[in-house]
């Protein structure tokens, strides 16, 4: 059977490209790892007090202890019930690098099963270098806002976030977050620092703080929800269990090969993420020579303490993304984004030995100081750089060559300015994220107004030299602003899906 369209991948891009194609004969091909069964319900602290949580927090095979001997995994994917997000299927190619630690997902819903749920619109200045405009993306952002539910408020970050139309009420702030906002004002702005509430794909009434341990908690959006409802309504076909090996254009369509079959369609949309989409394109071309660009937001972390909160009780129900910061001033050529995260949702043992105390002192600090703590994460924009490339090796594995980058300077300024709010942080404790740490990957098949060479895409994601193969994920982003890219991946995939739909009809 020939489908109208095949979408490969079911993450933020694949799901929303498929959404735009509802009503056509669209097939989503995917490995589609699903989360294990879980009976974890309720509040993390009630659960911890009530019963043993070994299987949920450590794991029957001690999965969450991965970081004791291995390169560090984010707390978002290291717990046993979340590991399916990054499990590699048999036969999948590796990503190799000396310097870049890549996370790729083969899960139904993709990496967005473990995203931070932070929602940003790319605005005019963010889209410099893109062949598309803010106005072209706006209706798609609006659709997403309506469909997935975004919480937030209109505040001082409006110039960075855009209008607050259609937003749900914001999540509750912790006492620490409230204190920072109370102290925030003109002196911060004069220093180029703007603080407000994040916009989050999180629904308040049902939220419990299990996002590090329980997959698909209903309050936090994942594309798997949208995919599931489309399948349930019969709007698309979904075929998990397929690791796609390659594709080729034929006279009248496209053939897609997986280990268990060949599928045919009039159009193909690739949406495996910037790394795996590039790998599949290079492999399908049999190209072991070309180097493609790769972008990733550099990031850094710094612990913060509000001394006035030491000895105060734990906040039992707070989402970890508490406050959003932007720096816009002379220290960096374009806005830099920061987020203040609460640490209440993590296990204490994840942070315990960070304190400069003997073991029992660390335990005391966990009890008394952690409720006063937060983490500042800062993201910088990224532009193409000849020292950041990917290619295939002889085995077809993806090799990323990525030169270490100089640390930024904005976090130092932010730490100084945040002192005015009662938050203390030391520049000595700033930790630069290793390349790959932000998990914001893009730019391997960049879109151009007029693509001129192989491995570029046009404004509708059409791959140069092809007539029927589109790319819908962040591989098409020619550069990365500092803002989290996931919401724009969804909006752009919707836009590209609609363009493909028009072609199918025309």
């Amino acid at each position, binding site marked *: 059977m020939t489908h109208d369209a095949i979408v490969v991948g079911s993450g933020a891009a694949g799901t929303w490209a498929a959404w735009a194609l509802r009503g056509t004969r669209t097939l989503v091909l995917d490995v589609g790892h699903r989360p294990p069964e879980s009976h974890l319900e309720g509040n993390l*602290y009630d659960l*911890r*007090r*009530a*019963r*043993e*949580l*070994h299987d*949920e*927090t*450590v794991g029957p*095979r*001690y*999965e*969450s*202890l*991965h970081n*004791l*001997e291995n390169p560090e995994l984010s707390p978002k994917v290291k717990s046993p019930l979340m590991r399916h997000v990054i499990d590699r299927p048999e036969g999948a190619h590796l990503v190799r690098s000396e310097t870049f630690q890549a996370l790729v997902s083969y899960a139904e819903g993709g990496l967005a099963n473990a995203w931070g749920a932070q929602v940003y619109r790319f605005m005019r200045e963010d889209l410099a270098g893109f062949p598309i405009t803010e106005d072209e993306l706006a209706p798609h952002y609006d659709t997403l806002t309506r469909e997935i539910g975004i919480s937030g408020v209109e505040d001082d970050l409006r110039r960075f976030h855009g209008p607050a139309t259609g937003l749900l009420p914001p999540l509750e702030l912790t006492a620490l977050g409230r204190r920072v906002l109370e102290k925030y004002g003109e002196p911060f702005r004069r220093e180029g620092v703007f603080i407000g509430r994040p916009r989050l794909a999180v629904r308040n009434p049902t939220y419990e703080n299990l996002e590090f341990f329980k997959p698909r908690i209903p309050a936090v959006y994942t594309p798997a929800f949208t995919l599931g409802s489309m399948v349930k309504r019969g709007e698309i076909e979904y075929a998990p269990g397929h690791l796609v090996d390659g594709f080729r254009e034929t006279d009248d369509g496209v053939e897609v090969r997986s280990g268990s079959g060949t599928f045919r369609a009039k159009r193909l949309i690739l949406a495996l993420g910037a790394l795996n989409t590039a790998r599949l394109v290079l492999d399908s071309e049999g190209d072991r020579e070309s180097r493609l660009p790769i972008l990733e937001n550099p990031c850094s972390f710094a612990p913060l303490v509000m001394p006035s909160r*030491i*000895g*105060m*009780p*734990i906040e039992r129900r707070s989402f970890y993304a508490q406050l959003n910061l932007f720096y816009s001033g002379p220290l960096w050529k374009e806005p830099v984004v920061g987020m203040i995260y609460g640490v209440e949702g993590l*296990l*204490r*043992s994840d942070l*315990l*030995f960070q304190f*400069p*105390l*003997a*073991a*029992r*002192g660390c*335990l*005391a*600090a*966990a*009890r*008394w*100081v952690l*409720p006063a703590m937060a983490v500042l994460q800062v993201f910088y924009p990224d532009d193409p750089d000849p020292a950041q490339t990917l290619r295939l090796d002889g085995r077809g594995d993806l090799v990323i060559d990525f030169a270490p980058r100089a640390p930024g300077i904005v976090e130092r300024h932010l730490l100084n300015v945040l002192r005015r709010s009662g938050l203390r942080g030391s520049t000595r404790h700033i930790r630069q994220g290793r390349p790959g740490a932000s998990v914001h990957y893009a730019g391997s098949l960049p879109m151009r107004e007029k693509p001129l060479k192989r491995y570029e895409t046009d404004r509708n994601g059409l791959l140069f030299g092809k007539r029927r193969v589109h790319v819908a994920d962040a591989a098409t982003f020619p550069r990365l602003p500092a803002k989290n890219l996931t919401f724009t991946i969804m909006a752009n995939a919707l836009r590209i899906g609609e363009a493909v739909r028009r072609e199918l009809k025309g």
Partner: protein
Amino acid sequence: MDDTLQGEAEAIHRALFGREVPDELSHHYVAAHPHALSRITEAERTWMARVVGADLEALEVALRKRYPDHVLCRKFRLMATLSEAWPAYYDDFVNETPRRFRAIAALAWHGMRSLLKSLKGRILLGRFGA
């Protein structure tokens, strides 16, 4: 091997919590090794066997500053993670009532204690090596 690891579990648990390790936690400590600490070398095993009767808390804090991935530091992290899954340890990790004075007093005490432990740890490192 299991007896050796159970002995370690007892010593590390006592260093961390100041009390006896429950059997079930000791069992998990032993069972976790092939999964989480499978790359421990023979030299590290021998070193652990030599130090297990010494002040492990002092050794750990002295090592953590210089060698954060030292085998003893990893074993402390293992014990902390395993124990946190049990309700019996909830109050060791979490405070649910405002106790500001007690917190500041406890932190001051542990600050001084940690200095002494660190000094003792350095002396022990002179004896046992790293």
